[in-house]
């Protein structure tokens, strides 16, 4: 249950910062989750879209969340050039020659809940919260501690947790790009490559 995952995060933070209100935590949790998903591309959705030669623009509506980035468009395994300047609107650079089906992969983020609604959690895939709850706890602690004039305000601890949060996002982004495959790409450029002069 995704509610249990979110409740675990809130309980962890509740214990670590006395005086915090649940409503404020839930508000900031949405911001933390949004930043995490926007910067990591962890939450992805693949959608087949039927296309015709007459039309260049198609809308992408995932069942949950909101598209933020177009990751890949393929047709029968071949890459198709397309853009998504407005999130959720796929624009093909060239029309297709005959009616076919394109496979679009988009990165998603959470949608904002209605204003003032504090009793619901954002809709997101359960596994994202379960796998990265530690990162989300750090993000939430950082955001709560960076607020002004609160019992739990602490610039020092906010910086510490924010650093851990950003490191967690960076690791998540790499893991997502490797599809969670261990040892998928161990080679990298020599570290002096960027600064070495001929």
């Amino acid at each position, binding site marked *: 249950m995704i509610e249990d995952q979110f409740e675990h995060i809130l309980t962890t933070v509740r214990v670590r910062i006395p*005086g915090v*209100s649940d*409503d404020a935590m839930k508000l900031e949790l949405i911001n933390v989750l949004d930043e995490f998903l926007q910067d990591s591309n962890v939450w992805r959705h693949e959608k087949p879209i039927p296309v015709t030669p007459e039309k260049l623009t198609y809308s992408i509506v995932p069942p949950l969340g909101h598209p933020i980035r177009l990751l890949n468009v393929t047709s029968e395994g071949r890459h198709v050039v397309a853009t998504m300047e407005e999130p959720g609107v796929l624009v093909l650079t060239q029309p297709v020659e005959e009616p076919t089906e394109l496979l679009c992969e988009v990165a998603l983020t959470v949608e904002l809940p209605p*204003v*003032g609604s*504090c009793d619901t959690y954002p809709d997101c895939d359960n596994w994202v919260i379960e796998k990265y709850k530690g990162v989300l706890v750090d993000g939430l602690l950082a955001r709560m501690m960076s607020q002004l*004039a609160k*019992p739990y305000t602490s610039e020092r601890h906010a910086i510490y947790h924010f650093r851990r949060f950003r490191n967690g996002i960076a690791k998540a982004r790499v893991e997502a790009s490797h599809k969670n495959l261990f040892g998928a790409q161990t080679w990298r450029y020599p570290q002096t490559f960027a600064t070495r002069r001929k």
Partner: protein
Amino acid sequence: MAFNTVNQFVESARRLVQDTVEPYRYSDEEYIEGLNLALLEARRIRPDLFIRNNGDIPYYTDNDGTEVDIDPQYRVAVLYFIVGHIHLRDEEDTQDARASVFLNKFVAKMQTVMS
């Protein structure tokens, strides 16, 4: 028993002011005014406590069992404000220092853990 209704706030404030024998020195309306002012001040200091109602501040008129819509962690702070506000009234039995103590206690409880 949960400390969460208007009449519980008024009753507790009366005990701290030692105003428990009728005829009362301060009316119910004066205590409820203190409660409403406490919530106004809380909204200024801690807007995060009022997210649920889109920032609207609850207002109470009667000394009854209506629930006071404030986080349980900060109900004692609200009680201290009511007592401080009552003591601000210029009467023989009132000491300004005591009013200041309670009002400062309210602010401290809202903004610090160790208070």
